[in-house]
């Protein structure tokens, strides 16, 4: 075991997969000599050379589209989108192509591509370097969307994504990169894509969230625990397609559900979670489903006053938990 930060976990997952399988390669903007703008690919260019750690031209649709081609041939590309906000030009290649290749060819072809991108705010990144974009892809059968919450999860899920024979979007929270650290096994391991994970057992209020929201909820849960409020915390891990059984089970644990996302509210991932509950666990509920999310404004602004007003933090979560507990 070694203590790894979230970004080190991601870096080592890529390194190990590249050592294990020569068909794995990395492609993206500034992933080479610079090692990525967040340094997620640090050292890989030096270790594997410019053939397998490719500094691509500034063209997201080509980054994904070329990777899709290479993946159909049999390679396992890891495509980095520099910021999740800049995935937009590649939407056609992701939704029309990667996600539909197996289905449209009736299983003749497949597309084992992993697309990584840093998401989330709280770093003065303003409108276009702070977004949560997962909701854009949560209606795209054929695609999987993974958003790990911890270093351990990040490493095991990224390895699973790289080995997956279908396309996987992998979103990493920028604030998690250097803030979150934990012990991670030295041995090879993978975690199952498509399965949620109970991060905390509790009996009063269920919180369902994902990504960096898990860390914030842990802080909030610690705080309310002092007042005897026990939080059950389900980490979705894979936000598309959702793990329905786990959602239903977590709901029935407490009958009071708080859904949390850093994304703006309407149309976000947690809307679908609420729908699953309303459909399948209605009679388990003791209180209306509560949603805590960013406000419905286009994106998180730059000014510190506005960023703070926008962003979900442990205090806002704590307040919502207390409110729900008191219902």
């Amino acid at each position, binding site marked *: 075991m070694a203590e790894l930060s979230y970004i080190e976990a991601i870096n080592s997952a890529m390194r190990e997969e590249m050592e294990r399988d020569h068909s794995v390669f990395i492609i993206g903007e500034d992933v080479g000599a610079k090692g990525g703008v967040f340094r997620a690919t640090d050292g890989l260019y030096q270790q594997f050379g410019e053939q397998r750690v490719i500094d691509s031209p500034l063209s997201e649709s080509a980054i994904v589209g070329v990777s899709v081609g290479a993946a159909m041939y049999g390679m396992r590309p890891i495509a980095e989108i520099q910021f999740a906000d800049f995935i937009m030009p590649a939407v056609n*290649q992701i939704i029309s192509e990667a996600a539909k290749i197996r289905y449209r060819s009736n299983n003749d072809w497949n597309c084992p591509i992993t697309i990584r991108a840093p998401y989330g705010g709280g770093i003065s990144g303003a409108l276009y370097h702070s977004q949560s974009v997962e909701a854009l892809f949560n209606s795209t059968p054929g695609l999987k969307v993974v958003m790990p919450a911890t270093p351990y999860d990040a490493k095991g899920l990224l390895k699973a994504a790289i080995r997956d024979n279908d396309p996987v979007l992998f979103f990493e929270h920028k604030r998690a990169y250097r803030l979150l650290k934990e012990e991670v096994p030295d041995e090879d391991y993978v975690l199952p894509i498509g399965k949620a994970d109970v991060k905390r057992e509790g009996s009063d209020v269920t919180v369902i969230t994902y990504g960096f929201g898990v860390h914030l909820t842990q802080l909030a849960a610690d705080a309310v625990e002092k007042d005897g409020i026990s939080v059950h915390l389900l980490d979705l891990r894979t936000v598309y397609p959702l793990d329905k059984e786990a959602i239903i089970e977590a709901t029935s644990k407490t009958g009071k559900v708080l859904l949390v996302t850093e994304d703006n509210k309407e149309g976000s991932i947690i809307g679908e979670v609420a729908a699953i509950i309303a459909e399948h666990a209605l009679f388990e509920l003791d209180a209306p489903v509560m949603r805590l999310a960013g406000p419905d404004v286009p994106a998180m602004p730059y000014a510190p006053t506005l960023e703070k007003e926008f962003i979900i933090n442990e205090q806002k979560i704590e307040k919502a938990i207390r409110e729900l507990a008191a219902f």
Partner: protein
Amino acid sequence: MANKRHVALGLTDDDVLEMYRTMVLARKIDERMWLLNRAGKMPFVISCQGQEAAQVGAAFALDRNVDYVAPYYRDVGVVLAFGMKAEELIASGFGKAMDPNSGGRQMPGHFGQKKNRIITGSSPVATQVPHAVGFALAAKLEGKQFVTFTSLGDGSTNQGDFHEALNFAGVHKLPVITFVENNRLAISVPYDKQVASENIAIRAKAYGMKGYKVDGQDPLAVYEVVKLARERAINGEGPTLIEAETIRLTSHSSDDNQSVYRSEEELEEIKKNDPIILFGNYLKEVGLLDEEKIKAIDDEINRQVNEATEIAEKAPYPKPETLYDYVYEQ
């Protein structure tokens, strides 16, 4: 007897007769599908008619045992040359389960057949160009000796994906051939409302690659330039952009009516450039065909298309419950 141009290109008499047969087969499959469409039996058709020479000339210049193709919807000639069968094409028009492209899931013209190295395609135009570049990148990374060929229409060269993919190929000097079948129309929109450059081949300059314009009604001319591009690619000399000047003889698709935006005279005029007649004339000039032999070929291919139609028509539709298959690996 006229100059045997094909011999100078290294093609045997059998080769060119095979090319001719492939062109005729493409045409007759296409014509049959229109008939079936007009009879209310086939929901949709999109045609190769007028572009067969470009398609077959290009495909024959590739190594059909190792190269990959990412064709576009008109490329019946390309996929036939790469091993797809008449009944498979007609079955895809019906949406039958035996369709190897998609098991009846996609419209006809959305080609794909892994065993013949035909890369699965979709409807949004030009998305196949980065895919082809990705195959070429894989060839380079894995040190494999094959070339990837992709084709698209003139209008489709205005998509961002065309630009991004060709630049990528140019930067990495990848073994990929981009083949534009320029019929000077995109559905109803004429070339001069569509493409700002004087021709398509000149766009190669924007990507530091070789660009060639070629008469797409002459399969031998097309063969020559694609062959050259393939050699360059295999020798590590990088990608090529080829523009084949061609014609669209039919409406854009069975849903279109070209008489709304194309004059009678224009339609009469282009018929003079029917590539099957032109190539037939060449084969007559060099003594490989005569009226009788042409008729024999036509008859034989008609028989082939009849049989194919029967097979395809009798074949079952996919079972409803298969709708749910293969969203993910299973």
